[in-house]
């Protein structure tokens, strides 16, 4: 592989990948899951091609400052050729901007914020995960079918605010009414106030526009307050793991959600993927495993095609590239040139009845797929993104 700090773009059959993920802090488990997925991808790729792949990990914590320092360190010190990772969008964006300035190809595997492929898009930053808008539109349609009027509780930060607007638009487009939008601080410990307001709005359902631990808490309190008997619910971003702690009974009341991918979506070779994750790591695969796998898979393939690790060469390969997943989903996906967003299906899922859930041996398939939206149908148009994409 390349020696420390050379970054000369020469490719000699070995690829050094940097995994810049939160291994500590609130998102540590998500970062861990992405790395697990990535490890599987490396196994597969080494088998498929005659390449030698090395992965160096670095902990970004939940701090853009640390993230930038780590990706810089991996680049100058460990001599990585390409990088992926990042959960919280502020960290991912900071790293993506850094990568773009420093000629390093980087895939922000797990940040959903629109800004990542919008106003904060970067020349050498791509995003595997579905964007906020993609999720919101998918969710909006399913939610509109689930209930006619909604009160939306959103986490009061960039992601939550944009998701709120997107969901509102999607709901209204699909004939549902948004009665009230209620803010709750990011990292709130208590949603009673918001739930009270949702209840008093008279809406038929409560929309959950939060992420991570916030989702867990809001769902838990929704159940505890007995609101579940009066109002339906649904949400915009499901990462299965955050709901595991509610237990099957609780989750059965969780209504419809959008997700990047979930263990219930076992099309293509995903069944095998779920099985492998369970065998290797003893846990149920969920979106993060998938994103980690896909990010590494795509990076390596681009390098192999380009026979170069130079960011610009990789960009030539990736931009506008159509591909069919090997080892994952069916169908064709694309790297959109204008904003570096991965054009991919986004799913709406619905909680099963507790009796219908698969819940054994660490396998937790608690949702069922209701719709699969094709990427192009739910993405923002290139114009809408606000990405100033004159890459050359």
């Amino acid at each position, binding site marked *: 592989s390349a020696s420390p700090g050379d970054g000369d773009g020469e490719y000699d059959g070995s690829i050094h990948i940097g995994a810049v993920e939160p291994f*500590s*802090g*609130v*998102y*540590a*488990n998500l970062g861990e899951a992405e790395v697990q997925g990535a490890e599987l991808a490396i196994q597969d790729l080494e088998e498929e091609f005659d390449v030698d792949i090395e992965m160096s990990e670095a902990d970004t914590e939940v701090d853009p400052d640390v993230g930038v320092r780590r990706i810089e360190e991996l680049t100058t010190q460990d001599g990585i050729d390409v990088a992926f990772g990042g959960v919280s969008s502020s960290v991912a964006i900071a790293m993506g901007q850094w990568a773009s300035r420093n000629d390093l190809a980087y895939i922000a595997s797990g940040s959903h914020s629109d800004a990542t492929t919008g106003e904060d898009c970067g020349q050498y930053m791509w995003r595997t995960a579905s964007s906020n808008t993609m999720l919101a539109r998918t969710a909006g349609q399913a939610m509109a079918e689930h209930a006619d009027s909604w009160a939306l509780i959103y986490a*009061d930060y960039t992601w939550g605010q944009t998701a709120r607007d997107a969901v509102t638009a999607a709901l209204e487009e699909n004939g549902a009414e948004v009665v009230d939008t209620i*803010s*709750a*601080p990011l*990292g*709130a*410990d*208590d949603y*009673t*106030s918001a739930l*009270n*307001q949702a*209840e*008093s709005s008279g809406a038929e359902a409560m929309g959950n526009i939060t992420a*991570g*631990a916030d989702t*867990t*808490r809001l769902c*838990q*309190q929704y*159940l*505890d*307050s*007995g*609101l579940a008997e009066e109002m339906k619910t649904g949400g915009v971003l499901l990462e299965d*793991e*955050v709901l595991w*702690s*509610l*237990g099957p009974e609780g989750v059965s009341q969780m209504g419809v959600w959008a997700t990047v991918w979930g263990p219930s979506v076992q099309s293509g070779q995903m069944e095998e993927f779920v099985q492998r994750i369970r065998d290797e790591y003893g846990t149920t695969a969920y979106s993060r495993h998938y994103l980690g796998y896909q990010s590494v898979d795509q990076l390596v393939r681009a390098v192999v095609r380009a026979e170069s690790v130079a960011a610009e060469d990789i960009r030539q390969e990736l931009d506008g590239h159509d591909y069919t997943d090997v080892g994952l989903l069916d169908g064709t996906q694309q790297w959109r040139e204008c904003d570096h967003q991965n054009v991919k299906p986004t799913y709406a899922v619905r909680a099963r009845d507790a009796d219908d859930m698969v819940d054994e041996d660490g396998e937790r398939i608690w949702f069922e797929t209701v719709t699969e939206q094709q990427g192009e149908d739910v993405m923002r148009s290139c114009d809408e993104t606000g990405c100033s994409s004159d890459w050359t």
Partner: protein
Amino acid sequence: MASTTLAGKRWTERTVATITGMNTVWKVMYLLLGLWILLTAAVSPGLFATQFVSGLVYGMILVMIALGLSLILGLMGVINFAHGAFFMFGGYVAFAVVAQLGLPFSVALIVAPITVGLLGVVIERFLLRRLYGTEPINGLLLTFGIALMLEEAVRYTWGSAPLGYSADVFENPVPLLVTNVAGIRIFTTIVGILSVITIYLLIVRTDFGLSIRAGVQDPEMTELVGENLPVKFTLLFFIGSALAGLAGVLRGAETGIDPGMGSLFIILVFVVIVVGGMGSFFGSVVGGLLIGTAMFVAPTMLNALATTTGLPWLYLPGARRVVPFVVMIVVLLARPRGLFGEEGFLE
């Protein structure tokens, strides 16, 4: 520490004195505040009432957490920054008991406080004890370090992901006045009230607290009049820590647990104590309820103001998070030692 530190003696008198002694600016401000509250109640009476009741219940949770902290602060003069971590640890012990060992919630209610209490005892005996009589800031910093260690240890053991466990029978919602309140919340409120009463009777009304205060001021002399002091210190720290643990069990059952929940709460609870007046037992109770209701009612009030004035920007979304701090700044500017604070305490 003054004599009436813990007893709320004469606080009614003091309230009256405060109101009469206030200057006109403050009087006008309080008047406006009152009018604003009335306006809100008029604009959306149902929501206001619901939020008010929920706020009180939430305030009771704050009181529950603040209680142990306030007890140790008021009697021993130790600013226990690790209290939040104890609280969080209580939740994790309950998780281990309920979710990992499969025992009933009631077992966790007993085991977790005891475990956390014992941890507190260890910290008191081997670390804090060396700092008695030095500047209070040392205790604050020491426990700050302990909090960091405890949080890391919990992350190492249980991971960073949010976890949850079942609270058995308390999961069902209970109707309360104008609203439904989660059963676990009602239970927490009851436990909170009982704790306040118990602590009051046990410590404030008996001479237990007296001995502790004497012991902090002059340990040798306290032993010389026949007091077995180390045992009492340890016992007090046990009670204070166990209360944090108990609060953690209840809180965890309600909202789930994660390693960051301690630091999330500790600042808020400090605000409660400062608003109530440091070292004042009643202050923390009043401060907790005040902050709790303010956090719930303030957004509704802003909303009411925004709708009646037609100025939508007045409705500051997410303002709830800064409400406690704004309350604290306002209270402290008007009353430098909080609502019931004693002059000279920890200054």
